[in-house]
């Protein structure tokens, strides 16, 4: 690896400087109109799909920076307060030594201190926030709420930060007292006794009298069970005039929706859910377009004057072979359907790429995987999955460069480099799956690891057989599950949880063949396919596999039988990422 900077840096949003987030973030109106609102929103999606980036981008700090760049002042109507949860404070587990009641109190105390600290930190950044306010009166009010005097020689919100920090450390000192095995801490704050009064106090400031506070809770899956219940209870508040929540969570299916009082929060009623890994069905939010904008912006930022397609060119050989395949298939289609152009184009869409793969000599090397659209398909709809191979490709070109300049110019990634990296990363992914899953994924036993490998291995064999032999849906590389029974589904769901955690399998929801119904379908990470000579460009068709076939593949390493299903009705045909 080289020490040069790389436009495809893919570190977590929290590690990126704010300037870089502004440079790289692609604002999507479909998300921002929900986030920049007074409603409660839960953002879901796997690691790397942009949840943290979205919350950070909509936080006051970033909006203020954006305003500075645009030479405008950000409106104060909606103030985003970013609250990270993946902190050592959240990971503390001493509450487990207490009874349930005490555990809930101390857990909420830690969380509300974190939220209040971030509120104060955010408000401290608003220029002239105390203009026209009676600061002495406000300080007295807060001192009354806190039951403690605030520092007088520092700005008001910095004094609140200092108080909250001190209170947090005091709590931890008592709990972790080295001279006592006791855990109890009596002076706990709650959301109602700390956050609400602080927000109320902020709202009483003339400058913020019309403000609404968006509390942006990132990585909420790191909260403990008591904190999740407390958060859900706050989400269930009916009055959204003062605050709302925007919560990012890795997988809502694994997150409790219960509240402290024993109820549950309901989608649509208490919150709106945004699935970041599942773009909406319109042009503006199409994943391919988002990916293109993202790469374009990064290239531009690095002074590279090239479109993503020019920067990641498709190999001449592949292009020629693909054109030849299209020509042959079109001839076949015309012979079959005459001048029915719709049927001909459907036929070409469905079989062109399959024909290319089928007509390759048995002993040929793997296809030269290249081209920007191939990278988009390989990402399986997750932003970080695009950036990773691009990063390695850029790095390889730099390391191969004979240019002695401090910053060698990279104007494009040659197709052979793209292909080498794609196949290499694919091989690494298989190696990891085969040998190391049980050493990396929580609650993954050796047996689970073997099953995970066997399932994906048999799916790869099945999809390859389909690609080469299947008549109606040769390029399908996602699946649905039929003939479900509880016992088998319990076993499969456990395995899928592990594969999801390992980001080797993505679970999506889409229209079923039965009118009006939705169904879950399963998409293996397409970075697995190049090592097996498969086509990552899938088609919008799902293979229906029975639960028994899938479990037999996983548990007994049995191959998955190939059947001819009835093709998906054309009305259901959509773009690959448009479900």
């Amino acid at each position, binding site marked *: 690896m080289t020490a040069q900077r790389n436009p495809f840096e893919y570190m977590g949003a929290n590690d990126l400087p704010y300037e870089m987030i502004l440079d790289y973030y692609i604002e999507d109106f479909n998300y921002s109109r929900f986030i920049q609102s007074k409603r409660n929103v839960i953002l879901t999606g796997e690691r790397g799909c942009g949840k943290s980036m979205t919350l950070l981008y909509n936080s006051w700090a970033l909006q203020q920076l954006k305003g500075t760049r645009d030479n405008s002042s950000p409106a104060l109507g909606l103030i985003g307060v970013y609250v990270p949860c993946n902190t050592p404070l959240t990971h503390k*587990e001493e509450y487990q*030594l207490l009874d349930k009641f005490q555990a809930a109190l101390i857990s909420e105390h830690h969380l509300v201190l974190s939220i209040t600290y971030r509120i104060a930190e955010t408000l401290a950044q608003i220029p002239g926030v105390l203009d026209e306010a009676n600061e002495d009166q406000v300080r007295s009010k807060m001192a009354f709420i806190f039951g403690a005097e605030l520092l007088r020689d520092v700005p008001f919100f910095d004094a609140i930060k200092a108080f909250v920090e001190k209170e947090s450390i005091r709590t931890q000192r008592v*709990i972790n007292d080295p001279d006592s*095995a006791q855990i109890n801490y009596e002076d706990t704050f709650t959301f109602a006794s700390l956050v609400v009064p602080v927000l109320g106090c902020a709202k009483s400031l003339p400058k913020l009298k019309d403000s609404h506070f968006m509390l942006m809770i990132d990585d909420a899956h790191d909260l403990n069970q008591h904190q999740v219940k407390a958060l859900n209870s706050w989400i269930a508040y009916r009055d959204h005039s003062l605050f709302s929540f925007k919560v990012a969570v890795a997988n809502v299916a694994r997150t409790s929706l219960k509240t402290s009082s024993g109820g549950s929060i309901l989608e649509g009623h208490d919150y709106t859910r945004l699935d970041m890994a599942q773009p909406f069905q319109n042009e503006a939010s199409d994943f391919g377009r988002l990916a293109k904008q993202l790469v374009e912006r990064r290239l531009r930022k690095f002074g590279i004057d090239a479109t993503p397609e020019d920067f990641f060119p498709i190999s001449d050989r592949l292009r020629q072979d693909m054109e030849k395949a299209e020509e042959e298939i079109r001839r076949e289609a015309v012979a079959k359907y005459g001048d029915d152009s719709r049927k001909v184009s459907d036929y070409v869409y469905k079989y062109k790429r399959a024909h290319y793969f089928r007509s390759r000599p048995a002993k040929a090397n793997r296809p030269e995987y290249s081209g920007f659209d191939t990278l988009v398909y390989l990402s399986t709809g997750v932003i970080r999955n695009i950036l990773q191979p691009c990063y390695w490709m850029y790095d390889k070109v730099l390391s191969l460069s004979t240019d002695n300049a401090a910053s060698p110019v990279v104007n494009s990634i040659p197709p052979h480099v793209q292909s080498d990296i794609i196949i290499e990363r694919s091989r690494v992914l298989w190696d990891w799956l085969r040998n190391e899953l*049980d*050493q990396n994924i929580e*609650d993954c036993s*050796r047996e689970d690891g073997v099953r995970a490998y066997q399932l994906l291995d048999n799916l790869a064999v099945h999809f390859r057989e389909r690609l080469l032999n299947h008549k109606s849906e040769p390029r399908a590389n996602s699946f649905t599950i039929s003939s479900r029974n509880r016992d088998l589904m319990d076993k499969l769901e456990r395995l899928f949880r592990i594969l999801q955690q390992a980001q080797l399998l993505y679970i999506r929801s889409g229209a079923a063949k039965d009118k009006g119904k939705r169904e879950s379908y399963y998409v293996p990470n397409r970075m697995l396919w190049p090592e097996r000579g498969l086509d990552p460009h899938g088609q919008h068709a799902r293979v229906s596999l029975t639960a028994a076939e899938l479990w037999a593949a996983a548990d007994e390493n049995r191959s998955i039988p190939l059947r001819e299903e009835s093709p998906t009705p054309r009305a259901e045909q959509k773009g690959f990422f448009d479900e």
Partner: protein
Amino acid sequence: MSDCPLLITFASWEQRFLDGFKRDIDEWHPAKVIMYHLDEFAEMSAPNRAEVVAECKAQGVVLINALLRVHDPAGNWKKLRDDMTAEACTGRNAVVDFSTMPRETIWTLFWLLDMLKAKTNYVYHRAIGYGEWLSRDPQRPRLVYKLSGLTKLSARTVLVIIAGYDVDRIQQLVRFYDPEITIIAQQEGSASQRLKKLTDEFVGNSTIQWLKMDAFSPDHGEAVLLKQVKPYLDSHNIIMSSLGPKVSAVALYRIQREHREVGLAYAPSRDFNKDYSSGIGEAITGVL
């Protein structure tokens, strides 16, 4: 009269546990032994435990056979607290043989014995040979009760990991704690293929700092680690974890004891290599 009223040990299936135990009896002459074992590995450790029972009987040593549960860390902490308190360890001598003891138990025992102002000695019996892998099926990492540090609300995290045999678990810790800076300490002289793989994986990553330490030196690497960590004590939250030589757990504990803001993290596993170690080598001892 015994110099050492209490020996605390942890039963495993390894030969060095039994050989080490016999050594401890000869060396420390305990009046009483508390032998812990874990429920999920009870069957594997049963033959060795039976021998300990026989040995104690033959030597006239009082033995308490105590069970800890894999899935109940809070219950285990309370059990250890109650045992240490009941044994009236206050101000008395105790020896902790942590050769085959989970790090979480080591740290909890050290903390409890310190709280009770006991005079704690420790002993670690090295093995002669090691197998190809140690553990699988990693569980969610966790901060150790009472040793979780003092988190600053405003600070990012520095994660310090003593790298060991299961280098893939470093990735797990990094993913879990999402640190701004990761300090990876490698045992001097270790140059296995897996460590090379680790350095290859992280090379060029500016958030990683590398460190060489010697866990088998008299201070178990404490000074080297502390020197690296000190610049971050005021500005960052520091979490330390050991996946490497077990004696490094002593160094981490001592650093935490001196700097309460530092948190200790335990990275548990559920599956262990039955043939991980063979034989028994030198004994490393010290005073906590």
